[in-house]
């Protein structure tokens, strides 16, 4: 007798879309762009059926500002886009951070810079974590590594956005968006956050409210930004998450984010089977970044090898975390075909100098 799994085989984009519905997203605003168009396509029917809000906006700029408008009223809302179009939203993200609005944004990365191309890449790490908007601000950024996590981290994005009143991004990539894997939705696992103290719901029976991105004077402005950064510190303290594998006795630790996580885990196993004490480390939250844990690991780890589908972006944060205690090297390809397990193994061996292990 065959035992059938209760999971369903689903595309990453559809998984994100349905997860947003289950998380209670009341309004979706978006503009199509490969490789994430299925999110808007799916929601165009689903939101209509549920009598929730759906607008195919006239531009990305319009879409993200519609989200700002919707979440200002206390509604859960999101948009989704990709790389060069997320670039168009940067101004609004700076505003949303300053306004402290629970915007949810999905970025299914394609290859850049410029228009780039539709194959996958991880070139938006800087854009997501450091931002292209003006002023001091930080998004919360979550990076899924498989389709199940596309669901889990979309749920978490809605929760964190509400809990901290801070724009939260799910940073996926074309690989995750297009692939199908078995996954299950379960129920939205987080409590609902009370936003009655700030949401703009009409002033009937109470004092009027307004949400401003700017302060009235210099002192107030300084205080506002300091308060924002105290909040970011709290987010870092409470929400930083990562995964690590075989780091206890590791001489070399592979570091990757998003869907590259799978490849470094497989490469780690191959290296272990060849007698090389390899470990793997994967930030789940890119912002806040697990700086402290990497710094601890650097006490016992000789080398960190950062594996990215870009010219080396997260490696900067790894270097800052390691703070000179260990060597940090890069194995990368700018865009396109994901680095294979064999390429990563070869890259690591090249870096550590295979001489040490010549007898293996």
């Amino acid at each position, binding site marked *: 007798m*065959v*035992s*059938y*799994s209760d*999971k*369903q*085989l689903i595309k990453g984009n559809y998984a994100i879309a349905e997860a947003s519905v289950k998380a209670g997203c009341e309004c979706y605003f978006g503009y199509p762009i*490969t*490789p994430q168009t299925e999110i808007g396509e799916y929601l165009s029917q689903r939101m209509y059926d549920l009598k929730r809000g759906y607008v195919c906006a006239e531009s990305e700029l319009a879409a993200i500002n519609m989200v700002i408008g919707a979440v200002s009223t206390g509604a859960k809302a999101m948009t989704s886009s990709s790389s060069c179009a997320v670039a168009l939203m940067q101004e609004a993200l700076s505003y949303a951070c300053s306004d402290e609005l629970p915007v949810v944004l999905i970025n299914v990365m394609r290859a850049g810079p410029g228009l780039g191309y*539709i*194959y996958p890449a991880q070139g938006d790490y800087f854009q997501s974590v450091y931002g292209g908007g003006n002023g001091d601000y930080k998004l919360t950024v979550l990076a899924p590594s*498989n389709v199940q996590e596309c669901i889990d981290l979309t749920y978490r994005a809605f929760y964190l956005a509400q809990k901290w009143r801070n724009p939260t991004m799910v940073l996926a990539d074309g*690989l995750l968006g*297009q*692939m*199908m*894997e*078995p996954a299950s939705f379960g129920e939205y696992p987080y409590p609902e956050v009370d936003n009655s103290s700030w949401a703009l719901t009409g002033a009937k029976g109470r004092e009027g409210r307004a949400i401003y991105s700017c302060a009235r004077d210099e002192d107030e402005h300084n205080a506002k930004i300091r308060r924002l950064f105290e909040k970011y510190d709290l987010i870092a303290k409470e929400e930083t998450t990562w995964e690590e594998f075989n780091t206890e006795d590791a001489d070399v630790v592979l570091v990757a984010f998003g869907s590259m996580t*799978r*490849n470094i*885990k*497989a490469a780690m196993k191959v290296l272990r089977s060849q007698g090389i004490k390899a470990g793997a480390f994967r930030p789940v939250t890119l912002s806040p970044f697990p700086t402290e844990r990497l710094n601890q690991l650097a006490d016992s780890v000789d080398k960190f090898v950062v594996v990215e589908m870009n010219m080396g972006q997260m490696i900067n944060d790894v270097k800052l975390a390691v703070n000179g205690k260990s060597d940090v090297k890069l194995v990368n390809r700018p865009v396109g*075909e*994901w680095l*294979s*397990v*064999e390429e990563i193994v070869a890259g690591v061996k090249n870096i550590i100098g295979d001489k040490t292990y010549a007898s293996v």
Partner: protein
Amino acid sequence: MEKNYIIAGFGGQGVLFAGKVLANAFMLAGKNVTWYPCYGAEMRGGTVNCEIVVSDDEVSSVHKQDVDCVIALNQLSFDRFISRIKKGGMLICNSSLIEEIRPREDISYIFSPMTDKAVDSGNPKLTNMVSLGVLSNEETALNVEILEKAIDIVLPEERKKLAKSNMEAIMLGIDKLVTA
């Protein structure tokens, strides 16, 4: 153990559909599985392919250079993917559209006139399902019950009536007597 499959053919031959049925079948067989399509400009007019990676553990990566098994539904796919098959791997060919030659000696071949069989069954569009029948002869994890359930999952509600003809095509692929 991890194993990957590529199904490739013309746009319109049902390559992605067959891949989804296969991926669901492996999932139902209790395996971890990832399905990944070629997408974008490649789809318009040229060949289409999708990769299915199956593993007892977590699937490590997709978009692999080497392939364990290729199902080629047309000559272009045969020519394109033969060099990517691992030593000891398998090439399953639709001999209705592919010349029966064996350029490499380090892989095994199965030639089956899939389109002819599909035409005999009354619908040339079912070439893709015949190919899954042929593959299921080689895969212990696959059987008729699992494939039937997988087709039911993949077919949308309004097309459920096609399940029967899809299964018949799979049976034609499974039937080795007809192949000979």
